[in-house]
């Protein structure tokens, strides 16, 4: 079980509980604005872009090569960027705070 907090682009904070699946699925199932997950979670659409709160980077780990490549030319990319379809929910993610990234 992990509690995950999303901060929307309107600065609303929404905390959800998940046990399995990806963070993207959790967000889509709960209508978090700005997370669309159009490709179903295979790193093809970049519609699940979040910025991890810096102190939580240890829990999520850094972006993989394909995530970095997909986001390379995104105006809103930064060192805390992740595609949250690549974050698998587990106890290890408990307490993380994710800021939904603005879209180009």
């Amino acid at each position, binding site marked *: 079980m992990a509690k995950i907090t999303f901060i929307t682009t309107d600065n609303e904070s929404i905390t959800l509980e998940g046990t399995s699946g990806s963070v993207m699925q959790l967000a*889509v199932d709960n*209508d978090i604005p700005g997370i669309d997950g159009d490709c179903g979670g*295979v*790193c093809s659409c970049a519609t699940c872009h979040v910025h991890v709160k810096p102190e939580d980077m240890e829990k999520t780990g850094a972006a993989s090569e394909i995530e970095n490549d*997909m986001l*390379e*030319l995104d105006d809103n990319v930064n060192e805390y960027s992740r595609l949250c379809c690549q974050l698998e929910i587990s106890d290890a993610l408990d307490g993380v705070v994710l800021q939904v990234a603005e879209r180009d």
Partner: protein
Amino acid sequence: MSQNFSENKICVVIGASHGGVNFAFSLRKEGWEGRIILFDKDPVLPYHRPPLSKAYLTSADAIEKNALKSAESYEKSNIELRLGHNVSSVNKSEKNITLDTGEIQAYDTLVLATGARPIIPSIEGLKEASNVFALRTASDVEQIRSAVNTGETQKNVVVIGGGYIGLETAASLKKLGANVTVLEREERILARVTAPEMSDFFEKLHATNNVPVLTNKNVVAITKDGNLNHVVCADNTSYKADIIIVGVGIHVNLELAKQAELEIENGIKVDEQAKAATDIYAIGDCTYHYNPHYDRFIRLESVQNAVDQAKIAAAAICDKKPVYNTIPWFWSDQYDVKLQMVGLSTGYNKLVKRIEEGAANKFSIWYFKDDELLAVDAVNNAKAYVLGTKFIKNKNTIDQLKLADPNSVFKPANLILE
């Protein structure tokens, strides 16, 4: 626009897949306060289709894991989801639709998101053959999985048609342990959609994975010997098949559009706001629409198009006057290869191939018409895909020599000619 422009209105959507579902949620977001009723004949909670031939086929997952939205999401957004209901007719003058059961539902705005269905070719003996499947729905996957997993023996599978769906299915069934052969009628696979280099690459990729992809194989008949099929080709060769997968393309679902007397040309013809007629919109695979960037009418079979048109139609209905202007994109996953495509390559007269060093199977094919970049196929190379997308959108002129040189920095500043 009055404040409650839609308060007592009813929007009926036929087809609850990538197009219809995204449309319904977008319409709510745009401020529609009336009813939204989504009909689909498929009884399953709407799901992502792309994984059906990819990860979902090889997994043991239940289809709910692939749901587009959770059941609660529809409730929360007050979207009425009527699954397992086939819409049999549309009455445009009365503004209503009729279900198979005879139930009539009135509408103020109608959205056709009826998509497409697989073509089942008229091959002699195909109807009588055992274990013949197309791949479009969750139920197709259930049946294929169970046919492959029945009994102890390794199954022989013949895939008719070397398009993306056929090739992905072949790769997935190989992973499930079947003995798979792909038969393609043309002289190369993916002939309509990619350059010969790409066809070649995928033929070799399958061969390396012990899946023969055979071209110039026009299937003319299926004969049976007990439960075993023999797939017979025009050149008199024949292939044993416990299971036959038909992947030869799709027919657009146009019956309702025809009844509504909508303009039809290779699909339902819509304008830049996805409008087909007064109070009737059409989105997704079933549409023939104008693409401003390429300045022509096209029909696409892609999630991107279904989702983007859904958003456009929703905004248009809420009087926001959007214009559909996107660059098409698509992906395909086979074995450990990820293909990402952007743009439309039709009409290209020059190809540039860029091979990244130090990584196997990592390259990109760039389609140009003279100096204009039309499209990019990127293999295990998201960077090429992303760069290509940007260049196409911005109509940048690219230094083709540098592009082809793997030692030349793969960054916009280095590649764009001013």
